């Protein structure tokens, strides 16, 4: 599966191409933005139309994206059906200019603190730089326990929480920053309609 080839560059920011004579490394730092339907028919979770996929359809669909790949994606957003008002643009949304200003400010804050952006910070430096409130740390540990967060998921959640705190201009990662970050983590986004029986 081609998507699996993204795992190394996503993790290391470069690709290695090995041939008989030589092994060459190319820079490959990028932001992966991808979209998927929740199921083959596209209506799983839709408030208007019933999903008509069978359980087998869902399993087959979900199995096309590997767990390790999904685990490397930091932010998940569930896109819901828009109302007629939203479609017509009648609902006021925040313009992108102030959002851009917030992002630039947060990046400047990160470079000032640690010389680089949070995304480029090594996992080993992360714990030193994060300044996590005790309550936030407890929440994170509980999440590892209850939600089965992987080691990678743990570090990614911490990194996202640091960024959430930076966007809010907070010095310390507070409990609600961690909770927001965990809310953005890997969703069982496809192919999971029902809880385990019993």
């Amino acid at each position: 599966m081609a998507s699996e080839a993204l795992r190394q560059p996503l993790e290391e920011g470069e690709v290695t191409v090995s041939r008989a004579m030589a092994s060459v490394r190319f820079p490959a730092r990028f932001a992966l933005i991808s979209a998927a339907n929740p199921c083959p028919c596209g209506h799983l979770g839709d408030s208007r139309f019933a999903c008509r996929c069978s359980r087998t359809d869902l399993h087959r669909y979900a199995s096309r994206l590997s767990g390790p790949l999904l685990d490397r994606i930091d932010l998940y957003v569930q896109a819901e059906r828009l109302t007629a008002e939203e479609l017509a643009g009648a609902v006021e949304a925040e313009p992108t200019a102030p959002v851009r200003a917030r992002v630039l400010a947060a990046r400047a804050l990160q470079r000032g603190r640690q010389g680089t952006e949070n995304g480029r910070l090594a996992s080993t430096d992360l714990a030193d730089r994060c300044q996590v409130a005790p309550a936030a740390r407890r929440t994170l540990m509980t999440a590892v326990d209850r939600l089965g967060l992987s080691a990678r998921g743990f570090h990614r959640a911490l990194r996202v929480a640091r960024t959430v705190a930076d966007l809010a201009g907070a010095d310390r990662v507070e409990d609600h920053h961690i909770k927001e970050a965990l809310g953005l983590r890997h969703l069982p986004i496809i192919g999971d309609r029902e809880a385990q029986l019993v």
Partner: protein
Amino acid sequence: MTPAGPRPPWWVPGLMERDVLLSLAATPGPLPAAVATRLGEGQEPGRLLRAHSPDPGAVAARLDALGVRFLVPGDAGWPLAATPPDPPCAWLFVTGPVPPGPVGSVAVVGGRRASPLRRAAARTLGSGLARAGWCVVSGGAVGVDAAAHAGALDAGGRTVVVLGCGLDVPYPRANTGLFAQVRAAGGTLVSEHPPGSRPRAASFLPRNRLIAALSAAVVVIEAAEDSGSLSTARAAGSRGAGRVLVLPGAPWDPGAAGCNQLIRDGATLVRSLTDILEELGAAIVGAGDAHADPRSDLETPPNPSGSLAALQALDAPARAVLAALLDGQVLAPGRLAAASGLRPGDLDAAVLDLELAGLIRRTAAGIQAIALPPAPTPPAPRPSPRAVVLTRTPPA
């Protein structure tokens, strides 16, 4: 009497009626309920035999090998003597001890696709009924049936599984492990169908009348419109008032459509294990048999492990989120925000708190409730002043 129609080759005049019934039961063809109806109309069992009816000796040997017993009305322990189902039941195949019947059993029923919250309720009530000494009766399907059995097993209780196929047929496959646990815990598998009978859609509706007949009352956890749970409830309701106990739901909850209809038709609304035990107590006293009741020494009903009262123990945002999900709805985050009236940041925190507490889960379809918060524990007894003095650390 001269036999009419073709006789099987093993036929001899003066055969025991029980043997004839055994052959009839093992004859492939019309549903057991249909045969039982004709027997009930006074037809002679021998007349219903056909040329290909199997030899009772061979059938008995097969049952022995499978560890299955054959019970007919009049046998010691025939569990349907007090509550003959309609259409009548001519025989039962049984693995395990004979079911206690309506004196000691309660049915817990609902659909295969019941919401996680209603399945959790089935499990909780199954446990509570078992702790109160009741044998839980249900079908063998996934969903509410399986949850009710699992709950009773959690509490160390025994259960009766009423199947719509042969007792040796592993259906549904997902529950074969559960059936083994039921047997290991001293429970029973029951069916009208001879070993080897495949599950057929036509077998499940008649099966429901047996679930009702084997129980003092039927607790309906979930019932969609035109569901099998409704047929079980109606079979129980035909025996009189107080036999159908129903968990209600909101008018827009599809899993409650049948429940609410039953209540409107006169069934008893129950909100908790306490309500159910109260109704069962009344039913037993009403039967004039309170002294023989093994549960009359029951002190206080155990707390249900989940309760709406415990919602009050949650903080306000979490309560708002859970309250919006209690109707069995699956809401995407945007709709949940609208339903709970929370700001995005508060919603995230409340959803995560509930997720960490194991009360909700996120799915591709949205967020759904899977359990109620545990019942509040009574406050710990205040330590006596003396104990406080003894445990106080000396001043530095």
